[in-house]
């Protein structure tokens, strides 16, 4: 498993496509962070002009800015996750040779999916530099230092990592069943987009069906984490999804033998 994990990480991160992925990610997350920060500062300025301390107190940096940026990161991962997942199982010749040379299906699946999860964690880890830099060098509108809540920040990062990992593993299942990586990436993106937007359609459905639809959507399981609340139900949901995707990849690879 370790050999496959290391190889996939090498190909995903230490390669021209890896450099492109990191560049796109860094640029997008930096730009989104800057946009949200500017909007937050403008809101603070307006609250100061009103001269009402209660309005200013409502503008919590951690609650507003971190949650909004994390939400944006999840949307970016909705696009990148399918590409990473499809890349994991995209090479047909290597995949067949792995079936021959790897000690077990489990080693292939865990190595590849593990690499996908590590890549998402690395991407999200890079973005932690932004709040860290702000807490060290930033200044509030009244000259005070910016207080970044480390627990809330890390919990938001964990939530984004879990959501991104879920996107990658779902795409990996689709790619493991497919011979065309690009079609697999597109198909899994559409599937994930529908799943993400499902809660919006819940109001149109009967209540019992609406509950199921809301539960199935990953969007329903990121809200607590982004607000800094640890929910074991959500952790279990993401853990189950990743486990089920692992089993799905195993079944797809075994099916390729027949």
């Amino acid at each position, binding site marked *: 498993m370790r050999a496959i994990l290391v190889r996939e990480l090498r190909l995903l991160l230490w390669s021209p496509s890896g450099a492109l992925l990191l560049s796109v990610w860094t640029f997008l997350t930096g730009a989104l962070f800057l946009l949200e920060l500017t909007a937050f500062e403008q809101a603070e300025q307006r609250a100061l002009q009103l001269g009402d301390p209660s309005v200013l107190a409502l503008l919590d940096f951690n609650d507003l800015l971190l949650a909004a940026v994390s939400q944006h990161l999840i949307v970016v991962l909705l696009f990148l996750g399918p590409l990473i997942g499809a890349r994991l199982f995209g090479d047909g010749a290597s995949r*067949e040779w792995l079936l021959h040379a790897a000690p077990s299906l489990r080693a292939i699946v865990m190595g590849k999916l593990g690499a996908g999860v590590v890549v998402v964690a690395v991407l999200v880890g890079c973005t932690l530099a932004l709040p860290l830099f702000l807490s060290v060098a930033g200044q509030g509108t009244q000259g005070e230092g910016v207080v970044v809540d480390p627990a809330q920040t890390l919990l938001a990062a964990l939530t984004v990592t879990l959501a991104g990992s879920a996107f990658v593993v779902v795409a990996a299942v689709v790619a493991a069943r497919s011979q065309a990586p690009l079609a697999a990436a597109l198909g899994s993106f559409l599937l994930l987009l529908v799943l993400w937007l499902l809660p919006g359609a819940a109001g149109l459905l009967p209540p019992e069906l609406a509950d199921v639809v809301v539960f199935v959507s990953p969007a329903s399981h990121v809200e607590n984490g982004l607000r800094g609340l640890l929910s074991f139900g959500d952790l279990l949901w993401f853990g189950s999804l990743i486990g089920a995707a692992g089993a799905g990849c195993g079944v797809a690879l075994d099916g390729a033998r027949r």
Partner: protein
Amino acid sequence: MSNVVTARGLGHGFGGEVALVDVDLCLRRACITGFLGKNGAGKSTTMRILAGVLIPACGSVIVDVDGRSCRAHSAAARKSIAWAPEEPAVHPGLSVREQLRFAQALRGEGDVDDVIAALHLEPVVARLCGALSKGTRQRVGIAQALLTRAQVLLLDEPTAGLDPTEVEALRKLLLRRRDEGAAILWSSHVAAEIEAVADDVCVLHRGRMVHHGERATLAQALTALHAGPAAKKAEATS
């Protein structure tokens, strides 16, 4: 000499098209078996079944692993078999050395430097596999198979893209592995190539095994094979 791989009654198809029909095949220790057949005869499908990456629709493949009988797709059998597919299983984004190190780590054995030297890959070890010529990629694919001390080597069209010097070097290397006790299945659609290297010969035609015997019987098998369609055509026109 005992059989290390015994395939009985192999049959397989793809999307309703029959690829193999009732194929029997035995590989002996310390023996090179030439596997002859035209393109599309079913050689690669047979190889993939023996390598454990394809489970046949019917029939069975038993591999003798240290006296134990194992199915071809079992982990023990796959560990004792090394397969070099026709399309080399190398990733274009990895260097030659990285690719071989990966194969070594996966199989848990082998000496990368030895195999690089044996296949004269030193000048290209740092180059990406995607930037190599077809013949060099082929040699890297073969190097992956020769990396381990597997008791069975399955080489699917190993000389495709190689120049005569490289073919000769590969032949010597494989003869040495044979003398060390390996059972080697060498597929090709060129009869002269098989005749030069094989101890045993089997001929596959349209998914059926039409001949399996010692090298001396190859000419007779080929005559029968070529006469077969001509005779059938003559019969049909009469």
